[in-house]
C-alpha cells in the first residue's frame, strides 16, 4: 500500500544525464574553490582570485590587487583548498566504490579498517617520535610519516582482506566481520598509545584524531595527489563491472566480470584514496558514507555516473566544511572532523530510519 502512495521516490531521475550532472557539479566545485580561496582573515574578491590565478597562466585581467595578496593566496589559501578538494574527492570516490563492492548503501571506508589502521600507525609515530630520528630534516620527516601511515592502513586492509579469503575468493560478509574485529584491535592499541603518551603528544594525538587540514602546504598536496589521482582516473573505468556486481558475486561472474580482479583492484584504490587523506589530515568521518548517498539520490545507482559525481561532491563538501571550520570561530580554527561528524551523524541516523522498512524486511 505504501509503495503505491509514493512511487516517485523510487524512480531514478533519468533527466540527470551523465554529462549533465558531472558538469553541474564541476561548475559548482569551481565556484566553491574560488569563494573558499578568497575567504579568510584577508578578504580577496572572486574577481581578484580569478585574476591572480590566471596571471600565473599568462592571462592578464584588468583587476587590481596588492602584491602581498598574491603571496597569501598562493602560499596559504590555495594549497589548503586544493588539499580539501583532493581529500574530499578521495573519500567520496572510495565510499562510492566500497558501497558498490559491499553491495550495501550503508558501507563506509572505515568498515574494512582503513581509518583504524591509519590512526594506529599515526599515533604510534607520534608517541615514538622522541626515539625516531629520520635523516634529512623536517620536510623529509613529514613525507615519511605520511608514507608510513599509508602503509599502516594498507597492512590493516590487506589483513582483513586475507582473513576473509575462503576457497580462492574473498567472502564479503566475512570481510565485514573481520573489519569490525580489526577495528576493535586497532582501537585498543591506539588507546594503549594514548595511555603511554606524555602531555604534548596527547595534544598532538587529539588534534590528529579530530581531523584538520591545517597542515596544508604544496608539499602535502603533492604527497596526496598521486594517491587520489590514480583512483579518480581508474575507478570510473570499473563502473560497468560494478553495476553488474550489484546483482551478486556469482551473477557478476556468470555475466563475464572477473570478480576477484575487480575486488582486489577496488580495495587497493579505495584504500589509497582514503589512507593518503588520513595520513595528512587525520580522521575525517562520514564523507565517505554520506556523499555517495546524497549523490545517488540525484543520479540513481548507475556507477558510471555515481563514481565521478561522488568524487566531485566529496571535494565540494569537504571544501565547504573546511571553509566553515576556519572562519566560524576565527582567528581560531575548529577541527574539520568535528563538523563532518556533527552534520554527518544525524544524516546517517536519518538514512537508517528512512530505510528501516527496507532493511528490516
Amino acid at each position, binding site marked *: 500500500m505504501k509503495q503505491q502512495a509514493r512511487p516517485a521516490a*523510487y*524512480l531514478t531521475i533519468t533527466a540527470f544525464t551523465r554529462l549533465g550532472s558531472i558538469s553541474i557539479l564541476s561548475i559548482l566545485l569551481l565556484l566553491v574553490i574560488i569563494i573558499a580561496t578568497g575567504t579568510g582573515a584577508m578578504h580577496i574578491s572572486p574577481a581578484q582570485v580569478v585574476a591572480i590565478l590566471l596571471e600565473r597562466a599568462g592571462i592578464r585581467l584588468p583587476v587590481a590587487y596588492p602584491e602581498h595578496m598574491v603571496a597569501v593566496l598562493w602560499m596559504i589559501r590555495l594549497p589548503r583548498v586544493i588539499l580539501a578538494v583532493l581529500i574530499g574527492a578521495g573519500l567520496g570516490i572510495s565510499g562510492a566504490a566500497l558501497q558498490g563492492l559491499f553491495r550495501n548503501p550503508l558501507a563506509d571506508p572505515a568498515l574494512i579498517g582503513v581509518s583504524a589502521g591509519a590512526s594506529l600507525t599515526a599515533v604510534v609515530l607520534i608517541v615514538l617520535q622522541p626515539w625516531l630520528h629520520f635523516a634529512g630534516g623536517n620536510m623529509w620527516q613529514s613525507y615519511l610519516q605520511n608514507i608510513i601511515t599509508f602503509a599502516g592502513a594498507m597492512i590493516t586492509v590487506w589483513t582483513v582482506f586475507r582473513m576473509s579469503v575462503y576457497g580462492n575468493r574473498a567472502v564479503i560478509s566475512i570481510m565485514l566481520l573481520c573489519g569490525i574485529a580489526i577495528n576493535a584491535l586497532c582501537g585498543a592499541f591506539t588507546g594503549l598509545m594514548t595511555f603511554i603518551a606524555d602531555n604534548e603528544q596527547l595534544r598532538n594525538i587529539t588534534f590528529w584524531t579530530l581531523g584538520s587540514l591545517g597542515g596544508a602546504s604544496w608539499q602535502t598536496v603533492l604527497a596526496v595527489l598521486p594517491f587520489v589521482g590514480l583512483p579518480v582516473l581508474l575507478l570510473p573505468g570499473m563502473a560497468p563491472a560494478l553495476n553488474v556486481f550489484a546483482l551478486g558475486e556469482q551473477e557478476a561472474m556468470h555475466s563475464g566480470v572477473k570478480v576477484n580482479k575487480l575486488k582486489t583492484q577496488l580495495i587497493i584504490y579505495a584504500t589509497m584514496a582514503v589512507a593518503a587523506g588520513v595520513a595528512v589530515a587525520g580522521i575525517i568521518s562520514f564523507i565517505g558514507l554520506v556523499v555517495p548517498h546524497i549523490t545517488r539520490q540525484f543520479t*540513481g545507482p548507475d556507477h558510471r555516473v555515481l563514481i565521478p559525481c561522488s568524487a566531485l561532491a566529496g571535494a565540494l563538501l569537504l571544501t565547504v566544511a573546511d571553509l566553515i571550520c576556519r572562519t566560524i570561530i576565527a582567528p581560531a580554527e575548529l577541527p574539520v572532523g568535528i563538523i563532518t561528524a556533527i552534520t554527518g551523524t544525524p544524516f546517517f541516523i536519518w538514512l537508517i530510519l528512512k530505510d528501516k522498512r527496507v532493511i528490516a524486511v
Partner: protein
Amino acid sequence: MLGIKELSLFFGAARILDRVQLQARPGELCVLMGPNGAGKSTLLRTIAGEYIHYRGSITLNGRELHQIPVAAQARQRAVLGQQLVLQMPFTVMEVAGMGRYAYYTRETSLDKAIVTYALQLLQVYDLKDRSYLTLSGGQQQRVQMARVLSQLLEAPDLDGVDYTGRKMLLLDEPVTGMDILHQQLSLQLATRLSQQGVLVLAVLHDFQLAAAYAQRIFLLKEGRLFTQGDVANVLTSAYIKSCFGVEVSVLHHPDCVYPLVATSPAGALFPSPADKAINVY
C-alpha cells in the same frame, strides 16, 4: 556440446556430487530433477563455473571449463540463479541491460535493441523505467529472465540466428513463484531457444512441466545420476518411487500428449497417529 565425466565435488569432507556422467547435445531441452539435497543446483552451478575445485571433467565444445576465460564463458552461456538479492534501485531497463556486459565496452544500439526485445518478450517492457525494487517477486523473476535472455541473444529476434553449438542456458528453478501463464511462457521461450540450437539445462520440481517440455530428463539422487532418458522412460512410477520415495501413478489421458504424474493420497506417507504412539512407547 556439454560433456561431464566422473564429476565429483566436495565441500570439506562432504561429497555433494559423486562421479556424475552426462552428455547433452545442442538444441536439447534438458531437465534436472531430484529430491531436495540431491545436488541439482550444485551440479548446475558447477557447470556455470562457480566451483573450480571440482574433480573429473566438464567440457564445453571440447574445452575444459576451467580453462575458458570468464568473459568467453559469459558469451557462450547464461545462467539464471535461484536467489537474487539486489539492493540498489536500478531500473528494470538497467537490470536487463546488465546481461550485455560481456559484449560491450560502450553500449551500442544493438545492445539496446536486444534488451528491449527481451523485455517485450517477457512482457515487462512497460515497467522499463520502474525501480526493480518496487516489483513483485514474479515480475522480478521475469526481468531476470529478460536479463539472461539478453546475455544469450545475438540479434533482437528469436528466429534469425542459429546458435547450434555456441550457446548454453542454465536455469535453476526458473518458474518457481511465477503464475501459471508466465510459467508456460517461460518454458515455451526455453523451447524456442532450444529449437534455435541453444542447449537448455533447467532444474524443475514440477513433474507436469517437466513432462510437457523436457526432451531429456536427468534424475539425480544423493549426488549421483540416478537415471536419464526421455520423458516416457524416466517418468515411471518405479523410478519416481525409488528416487523420491513417493507412490505415484503415471496416467495417460487422450487429451494430453504427455504423461501425468499423480500422487497417492498424502496420508500414506506418514504413519498414522496410532502407529506413532506405538513407536514412541
